[in-house]
């Protein structure tokens, strides 16, 4: 009646170009069982943290996206709430401010009936000279189950994960990664593709050509998206002036172009990154005007896109720089869907980390 368990070795040993000596590895448990007569598949793996998209691998990403489908239905209800994480506490620790992402996480937690705790840099005792470690250990001692951490320094959530019992979700660490953004972006693409084919949402992006345009060098959103999209089989092209590309692209699963125009007609998804004005001070580009002229998605450029090409942006947008206002309002722009999908995707992530068995082997079948 019951099928044998499958090990999680493939998931735990994510094949990326990175070695991770000394990091906290996701705790994975080998289980995949059929529940008795109804065939309910219970366990996949129990994870403790989400620090990088690379932690998930293709299977993990799909697991999140499938879960997000269920949570999307929940968010459409009149009472958009399930008791799944009742009694758990999710703390948001935003050492770098971002109202939007923080609210999205807090909404996700609340929709799962979890309690939330908010901690922002200005209210922190960090300003009183308390170290990061002291701060998170104090919050951990209050018994929170998950910490959603955003920090200006790459690797901060990784450090926190080593100090606390709680599960840690990386909500953006310096220039390194923003895993939930990439997940909601993939979800949004998948949703758009399903709508277009009026069929099931695809689990494979093979043949999908994505152009990521803009300040790749400083963008954690770009890094996470390159990892997630290529894990799902998409072909990614980075489009930026040389100064806004990372110093080395060794090991990056992506093509490169220093010009946007040649790429336009041959792309299915245009993903625009925000161009910050500070980059001019750093002499990365001579002026925003020149940047917009070379890389902005103007109305004229948008007209040259394939008819069903998708346009995306993680927000907030600089209208007139990376994208023209009129293009934004066009139906091909998925920006509002991206924002909307943030909640179910983050619900899926929180449920994945907190709703599973805490680090142990799967218990026997759930009785009905």
């Amino acid at each position: 009646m019951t099928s044998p368990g499958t090990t999680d070795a493939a998931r735990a040993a994510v094949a990326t170009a990175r070695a991770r000596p000394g990091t906290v590895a996701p705790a994975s448990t080998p289980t995949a069982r059929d529940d008795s007569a109804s065939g309910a598949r219970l366990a996949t793996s129990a994870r403790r943290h989400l620090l990088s998209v690379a932690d998930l691998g293709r299977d993990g990403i799909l697991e999140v996206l499938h879960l997000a489908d269920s949570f999307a239905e929940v968010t459409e209800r009149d009472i958009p709430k399930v008791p799944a994480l009742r009694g758990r506490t999710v703390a948001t620790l935003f050492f770098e401010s971002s109202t939007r992402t923080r609210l999205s996480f807090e909404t996700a937690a609340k929709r799962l009936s979890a309690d939330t705790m908010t901690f922002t840099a200005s209210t922190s005792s960090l300003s009183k000279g308390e170290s990061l470690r002291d701060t998170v250990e104090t919050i951990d001692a209050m018994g929170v189950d998950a910490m959603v951490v955003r920090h200006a320094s790459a690797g901060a959530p990784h450090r926190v994960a080593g100090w606390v019992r709680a599960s840690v979700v990386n909500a953006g660490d310096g220039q390194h990664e923003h895993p939930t953004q990439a997940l909601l972006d993939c979800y949004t693409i998948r949703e758009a593709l399903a709508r277009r084919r009026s069929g099931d949402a695809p689990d494979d992006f093979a043949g999908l050509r994505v152009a990521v345009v803009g300040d790749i060098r400083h963008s954690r959103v770009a890094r996470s998206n390159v990892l997630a999209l290529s894990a799902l089989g998409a072909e990614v092209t980075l489009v930026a002036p040389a100064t806004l590309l990372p110093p080395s692209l060794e090991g990056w699963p992506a093509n490169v172009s220093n010009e946007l125009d040649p790429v336009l007609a041959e792309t299915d998804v245009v993903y625009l990154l925000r161009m910050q004005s500070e980059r001019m001070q750093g002499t990365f580009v001579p002026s925003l005007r020149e940047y917009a002229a070379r890389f902005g998605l103007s109305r004229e450029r948008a007209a040259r896109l394939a008819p069903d090409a998708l346009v995306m942006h993680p927000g907030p947008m600089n209208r007139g720089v990376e994208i023209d206002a009129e293009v934004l309002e066009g139906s091909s722009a998925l920006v509002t869907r991206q924002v909307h999908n943030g909640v179910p995707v983050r619900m899926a992530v929180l449920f994945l980390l907190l709703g599973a068995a805490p680090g142990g082997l799967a218990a026997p079948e759930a009785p009905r």
Partner: protein
Amino acid sequence: MSVDDVRRALVRIAHEIIERNHGTEELVVVGLQTGGVPLAARLVELLREIDGTDVPFGSLDVAFYRDDIGLRPVRPEKATSMPCDLAGRVVVLVDDVLFTGRTVRAALDALRDLGRARAVQLAVMVDRGHRELPIRPDYVGKNLPTRRDEAVEVSEDGVLIGDLGPV
């Protein structure tokens, strides 16, 4: 139970539903993911054949309402989809096996969030005993006493009972 036994039981249950509810007005048939859904679909067909009416049909995944989240990994099977507002309707919950009753309790919690039904009735193909909560079915295909360590499966081949064995 053989395939024919299951079919006959469904026909009888369909008649019982019509009789008990004095017709099919205001009924909604909701199948529990995943085992109850095919049974619920067949019930709706039978109700149409017998009574000539189209009873709305929905499916419900109760993963997020389970009381063992955090004790073991839990994943939703399929989506929940309700065809209409449940307010004021009689919901007939359909599942394949009734065992401890926890799944039905979770289903009742889920239904609460989906609207205020006038009444909820429970139809199961097999009641295997070992209840842990005060839940009782309104319509039963067959009572099949089992040991706790046995497994019960309702499929297109009928109802099978077997040893769980080492997992």
